[in-house]
């Protein structure tokens, strides 16, 4: 396998050199030369106007995957409550299943969960497989991995989706490693290639600066984890289907769990103190940075967040100053979030911060520096002192008036 530049059509225009993130291209004598730093990411192939670059010698997938059918979604639950991202994935899975003309399956491992079934069917699930066993109680990933592997071997789905939650991101790579198939992490868009009928998995990389579309070349199922809050929850059935209406669609799987030994001994679980915070659970995030000036002022943000039904986030500068705890940090070394509304208060907009929030639907920035980078990614910007504006905003929200 190699990457080649067609010398006759290459003009040495440097487009490829500029797009390459690995310094793998040099221009010598008006021709592009690709060196050993190349990682075959394909960015140069895409950008070249003269179609001069190609990867050759890569064996085409010849395997026959006809026995793999259907879209399967891993339904993640914690103490019986189902993660929102699972519903989002069922909605997305329905769309994919429709374009493939196949069935949508849910797989739900857990213990004593019957109450949560009906809602699963409002998103168009054709069939729900349930494995009810007490071994799932502590959410240990190696136990889950063994179970999912058996399920995948038995039902052979063509596509397998899971939420890119903390749990999903540790569990699913193990499953993929055992099955020996490809896995694409943290997808933000999924689609079916109309001709090849394969899954196109799109994900941000380089801190959200670039999107890459990835395919699973020569193995099945095509597995992907998907970021919470990216896909839309779209119920296809009005209200919750009745218990009777779904009974025929639920299948209990009996697994031989006698050899399901775990390698973990769970000693304790503590909720993060204060509010339980999983930033990605919220539609509104109100974040504060160094401009907050100190820990006490974060109560102002908390008040605003509460009024909006949201949660407080923070820049690293605020976390590093111990004004707020690390689980609140947004950014490259914190959480990646994409809420409906992100309000950045006293945050300058360093690239590492933007990496964690620039895919939010609506970004509102409040900063006293008109040149702050945060305004470059914001939909709405307010130049001013946050201590002037936020209290006034809270007042208005509380009184419900926007007339002066």
């Amino acid at each position, binding site marked *: *396998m190699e990457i080649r530049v067609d010398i006759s059509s290459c003009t040495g225009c440097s487009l490829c050199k500029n797009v390459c993130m690995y*310094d793998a291209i040099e221009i010598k004598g008006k021709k592009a030369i690709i060196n050993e730093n190349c990682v075959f990411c394909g960015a140069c192939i895409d950008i070249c106007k003269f179609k001069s670059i190609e990867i050759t010698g890569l064996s085409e997938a010849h395997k026959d995957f006809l026995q793999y059918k259907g879209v399967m979604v891993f339904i993640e639950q914690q103490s019986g409550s189902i993660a929102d991202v699972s519903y989002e994935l069922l909605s997305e899975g329905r769309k994919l299943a429709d374009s493939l003309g196949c069935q949508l399956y849910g797989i739900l491992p857990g213990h004593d969960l019957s109450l949560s079934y009906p809602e699963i069917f409002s998103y168009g699930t054709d069939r729900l497989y349930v494995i009810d066993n007490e071994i799932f109680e502590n959410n240990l990933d190696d136990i889950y991995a063994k179970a999912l592997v058996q399920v995948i071997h038995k039902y052979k789905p063509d596509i397998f989706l899971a939420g890119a939650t903390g749990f999903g991101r540790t569990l699913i790579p193990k499953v993929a490693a055992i099955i020996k198939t490809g896995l694409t992490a943290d997808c933000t868009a999924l689609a079916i290639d109309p001709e090849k009928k394969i899954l*196109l998995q799109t994900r941000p990389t380089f801190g959200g600066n670039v999107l890459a579309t990835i395919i699973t070349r020569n193995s099945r199922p095509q597995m992907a984890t998907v970021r919470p809050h990216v896909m839309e929850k779209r119920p296809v059935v009005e209200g919750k289907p009745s218990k009777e209406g779904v009974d025929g669609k639920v299948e209990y799987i009996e697994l031989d769990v006698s050899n399901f030994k775990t390698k973990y001994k769970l000693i304790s679980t503590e909720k993060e103190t204060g509010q339980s915070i999983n930033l990605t659970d919220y539609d509104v995030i109100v974040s504060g940075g160094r401009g907050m000036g100190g820990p006490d002022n974060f109560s102002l943000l908390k008040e605003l967040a509460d009024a909006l039904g949201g949660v407080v986030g923070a820049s690293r500068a605020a976390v590093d100053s111990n004004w707020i705890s690390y689980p609140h940090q947004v950014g490259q070394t914190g959480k990646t979030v994409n809420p409906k509304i992100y309000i950045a208060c006293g945050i300058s907009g360093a690239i590492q911060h933007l990496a964690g929030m620039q895919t939010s639907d609506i970004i509102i920035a409040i900063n006293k520096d008109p040149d702050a980078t945060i305004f470059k990614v*914001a939909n709405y*910007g307010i130049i001013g002192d946050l201590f002037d504006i936020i209290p006034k905003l809270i007042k208005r929200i509380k009184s419900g008036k926007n007339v002066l």
Partner: protein
Amino acid sequence: MIKIKIIVCIKQVPGTTEIKINPETNTLIREGVETVINPFDTYAIEEGVRLKERLMANPETGQEVEVIAVTMGPQQSESILREAISLGVDRAVLLSDRAFAGADTWATALTLQNAIKKFDDWRLIILGKQTLDGDTGQVGPELAQMFNIPFVGYASNIIEINRSRMIIKRLMDDRYETFEVKLPAAISVGKEINIPRVPSLRGKLKAKNEQIPVWNKDELGLDDEKIGLSGSFTQVVKIFIPKAVYEVKMITGSPDEQAAELYGKLKELNTL
């Protein structure tokens, strides 16, 4: 005496700060050529060195500990191995072969596995929680699965450790979990676990003089179809720039007017 080995997996990545987008052509412009140790991997290095110090100071374990840094990458990634040595790592190995290029997380994990297999008596593999460029966090759990050893991701504190087991705390989305696991094991770490030190003068000297062995695919006994892009299950078929940057709408006026207009916007957006 038996030496305990701790393996630290690190990767050289392009520093993100240098990526800019040319608004006219909507293409990436890289400014400068700087590459860095993947930021999370610096915590992996530090944790490896701290564990060594801890284990050696403990009379009960009283063992000799060696910290080894491993990276798979082009020749130029040798520089991050030297940096790791300056930070206290004992020695380093570079896995480099043209045929490794284009590896997805699976092929990366497999290559790392075959390298680590060559060491005996390793008890712990430490990885960063994710890379800047790959950004998947998959290499750790996949590697652990290949060895069939426990993997604790997002570790925030190693509470207790000896030759055969450890007690370790990790941060899941909204909770901390504390586990006891047997060694060998693999963990991934982020900034919560420690504050990396700066290189010492002695370290810098050692780093300068150290011979860093390079292992290619033959040394690892890996065929072409197992490694690099050929050995990968996934393949990038397209790289592109996200939606064009939109115009920001400025909300102006007195603080009162600004607050009022923002309130109106929030109402429009249905958050109230």
